[in-house]
């Protein structure tokens, strides 16, 4: 039915409540964008999906979360993460591995490819999907520090894709990249819809307008409005959403 379902999910970090009774439905094979001002809990929400919230000291999650037929909060997180790829705000390709190895390690660990030939194919496919292949095909054995920030981020996307995930989580992926690379990344994201369900977090309403099929507006830990993107971008029904679109918050 839905790739991700959240019912009354609340997240506490220490004494502070970050997410307040969040209810969401994310359909399969769409680009679902979570929009909101800084500090509204978007990153936390994303990390609940692949249980990376476990790494935060003092984090507590309440409610029900269904991710790809897993009861996400009660399943083994290492098992769950096999089906979910993630790209972070700051590009973080493994610095000790070559470009090729960075992408290959994700495929190897998840049993996506076994022989060298299969691995080569997956690496090429992932880099093509991330729109990075043409730029690195002659230097697959260079290291990530030799790439620009935008290229590193696309490498991270390729790494996530090499897992052949069913769900792709993107945490403000273009926040630290130049505009040209940001556009390339957005194009790549939109083209992935057929193969994965994309959940992206952004604080830029224009970026959301460029890529989203569905949007959820998060403000102060609550979902203020959610629905098809077209509707939200022309006729938002809440004042908070309208303010967000204007860039006032």
């Amino acid at each position, binding site marked *: 039915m839905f790739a991700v379902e959240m019912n009354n999910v609340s997240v506490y970090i220490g004494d502070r409540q970050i997410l307040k009774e969040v209810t969401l439905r994310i359909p399969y094979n769409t680009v679902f964008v979570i929009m909101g001002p800084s500090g509204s809990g978007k990153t936390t929400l994303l990390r609940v999906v692949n249980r990376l919230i476990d790494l935060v000291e003092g984090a507590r999650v309440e409610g029900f979360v269904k991710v790809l037929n897993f009861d996400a909060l009660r399943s083994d997180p290492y098992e769950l993460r096999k089906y979910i790829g993630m790209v972070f705000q700051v590009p973080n390709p493994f610095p000790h591995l070559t470009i090729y190895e960075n992408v290959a390690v994700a495929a190897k660990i998840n049993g996506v490819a076994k022989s060298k030939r299969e691995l080569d194919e997956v690496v090429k496919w992932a880099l093509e999907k991330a729109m990075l292949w043409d730029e690195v095909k002659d230097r697959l054995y260079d290291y990530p520090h030799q790439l620009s920030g935008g290229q590193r981020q696309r490498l991270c996307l390729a790494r996530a894709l090499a897992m052949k995930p069913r769900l792709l989580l993107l945490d403000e992926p273009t926040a630290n990249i130049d505009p040209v690379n940001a556009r390339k990344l957005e194009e790549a994201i939109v083209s992935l819809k057929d193969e994965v369900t994309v959940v992206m977090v952004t604080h830029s309403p224009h970026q959301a307008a460029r890529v989203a099929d569905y949007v959820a507006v998060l403000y102060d830990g609550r979902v203020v409005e959610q629905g098809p993107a077209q509707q939200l971008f022309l006729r938002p029904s809440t004042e908070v959403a*309208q303010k967000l*679109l204007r*860039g*006032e918050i």
Partner: protein
Amino acid sequence: MSLTVAELEKLKGILIRMAQNIKGILQVTEKLMSVSDVEQRKMFWREIENTAAILDRIRREFVNEVLVFIARRQPLGRELLASHVLISIAYDVYRISRYCREIARIDSMLAPSSGLSTVANLSEAFREAEKAVEAALNDLIEFSPKRVGIVNEVDNRVDEAYKNVLLEVTSSTTVSREVAVKAIIMRHIERIVDHAQYIEQYLSELT
């Protein structure tokens, strides 16, 4: 108030000022339809011609301003809809002035031997149209379609009148000059009321 909203208010102000000019041109056109003195009518023709030309220029510049606003501020949501509404209403206001100009042209061609004042009931119909446009303009100032009822009523009445004239034309094999002129003018009047209605429709899209 954010820059986007402030600039949008400024554009609204420009549109409203443009629309005020319509009142003037409608009044002159009304006078044109009731006066027979050629010299006076010549003055009116010139005034209508000038105002229409000015409004055309203002419209083009205004549309440009709105496009620049859209490119710069990249509005979303209500402001995006409002941009579209502003451009559309500017066109409607311009068209109203154009129809006045068309009416003046017919009068100038009828002169010196005849004039619109000789055709029966035109002034009455035109006054109805003026009422509709005034209602639309007041709604534009308040940016809310409060008087849409009035405009719709006028539209119904003018439609009726127009249909009657068409009936006159279509029911006989030949048609007198008076009836022909009446038909053309009534059509222009009907279109003026249509544009007043469009203005109301655009305003209601924003609510």
